[in-house]
């Protein structure tokens, strides 16, 4: 049992499964509160489920010593797509939606040019982070301009945006300069450091997403009380 490739892999690199643990927790939180999720949150939930599937394939590939770097790139595509969908629904002004689509378009162009099966597409991931930051800023501007959210601190999309902007800011340079950071596996151990940073921020983002699903329930109740 213990010598099954999956198990031995997990036992060998336990810390690399930290984000996956929080991913599972976030999906659990999403499932528990699923009936309270609004449409943007459902897109984020879909993103998490797809990320989990990709993660499982990654685990499988790694266990059987096959190349799995392209899955990183695919995961980025999934994230970007679902994010754009969520923000397109949440940002109701026409001009904002144009910006959302433009960001997605630029990302797709970069993705098509930069995609690779065998290495991490650093520029694509960097651009993904820049677009995420743009979305989050756009959203912040939107809520400040509209003033419709009564209590921001229990508004899930605010937390999602805050988590996204922190996650993106923390890992932007790591991916933009991927050759220096994650490029050389051999040398003085910088790979380990940077991959830990990336994993930490991913884990953090998953926690925030899970939390945002949980507060949807409260916000939903509150909205119900106001409308009755």
């Amino acid at each position, binding site marked *: 049992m213990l010598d099954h490739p999956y198990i031995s892999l997990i036992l060998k690199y336990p810390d690399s499964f930290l984000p996956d643990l929080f991913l599972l927790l976030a999906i659990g939180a999403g499932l528990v509160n699923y009936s309270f999720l609004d449409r943007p949150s459902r897109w984020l939930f879909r993103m998490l489920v797809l990320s989990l599937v990709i993660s499982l394939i990654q685990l499988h590939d790694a266990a059987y010593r096959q190349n799995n770097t392209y899955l990183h790139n695919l995961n980025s595509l999934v994230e970007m797509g679902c994010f754009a969908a969520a923000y397109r629904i949440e940002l109701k002004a026409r001009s904002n939606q144009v910006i959302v689509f433009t960001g997605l378009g630029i990302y797709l162009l970069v993705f098509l040019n930069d995609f690779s099966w065998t290495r991490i597409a650093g520029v694509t991931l960097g651009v993904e982070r820049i677009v995420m930051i743009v979305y989050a800023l756009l959203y912040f501007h939107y809520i400040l301009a509209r003033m419709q*959210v009564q*209590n*921001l601190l229990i508004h899930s999309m605010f937390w999602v945006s805050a988590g996204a902007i922190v996650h993106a800011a923390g890992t932007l340079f*790591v991916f933009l300069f991927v050759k220096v950071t994650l490029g050389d596996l051999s040398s003085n151990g*910088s790979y380990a450091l940077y991959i830990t940073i990336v994993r930490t921020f991913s884990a953090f983002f998953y926690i925030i997403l899970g939390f945002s699903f949980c507060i949807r329930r409260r916000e939903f109740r509150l909205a119900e009380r106001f409308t009755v």
Partner: protein
Amino acid sequence: MKLYIAVGTAVLLVMAIFIIVFVAYYQQKQIRQQLILKEWQEKYRKGLLAATLQAQEHERRRIAQDLHDEIGTMLSVTKLSLNQLGRTVEHNDPGSTVLVQKTRSLLDETIANVRRISRDLVPTTLERFGLVSALEELAEKASNGEVHVELSCSDKMPTLLPQLDLTLFRIAQELINNAIKHANAENIIIDLHCQPNGVLLSVIDDGRGFDLDEILKDKKRGLGLRNIESRLNVIDGHVTFDVEEGRGSRIHIQVKNLKPEVEVEVEAV
């Protein structure tokens, strides 16, 4: 290079956190201001409403006074000269005596009507003897062969603020009028009860009832019912319509007997 990456990342993170904190803080502040503004608007609206109602009462009082003092006096004088005329006519032209008699009784009726109208315009009993007496009078006046209006109230009514008295009285007037006019009721009960720190006034009839939603949907109808709500708005009161088509209506008015925000002075006549 690695140093640059570290510093760049740190700077970005600090900026991101700063932005998040700023957005949260600024938004909450704006929301608080919005709330204050809304409260202020609400207060202003109430003040306006109170002023309107007060102006209405003033105007009624003025009309009542004019009716009583001017028209009433003129009519009395007219009656005097008619009496003189009557005596002259009796001597010279006995045939016209009947006509004079008829005119006199018409004049008497007019005088009585003017008195009644001017009394109805200003709730004198309310101001002199309080709400219970005024409602008693109202019930008495409204009762006739077809309808029976009855007042039931708890023994010890607390003294209410004058503004509350007037509001409750006007509302009761409207509700009883409605029950007589629209409901075809035989029995109407006015029920006045004190509650801990408030008063409950109910008007119950056994008439044919109505569909409240339908009435309120039509902007032109239901003016009386809407007026009740705006009157109550000023004194933070509350109305519950327990009504339905096909059965008697029960309308409950609840007011708090506390010092209200908006003062409306009611002057003595």
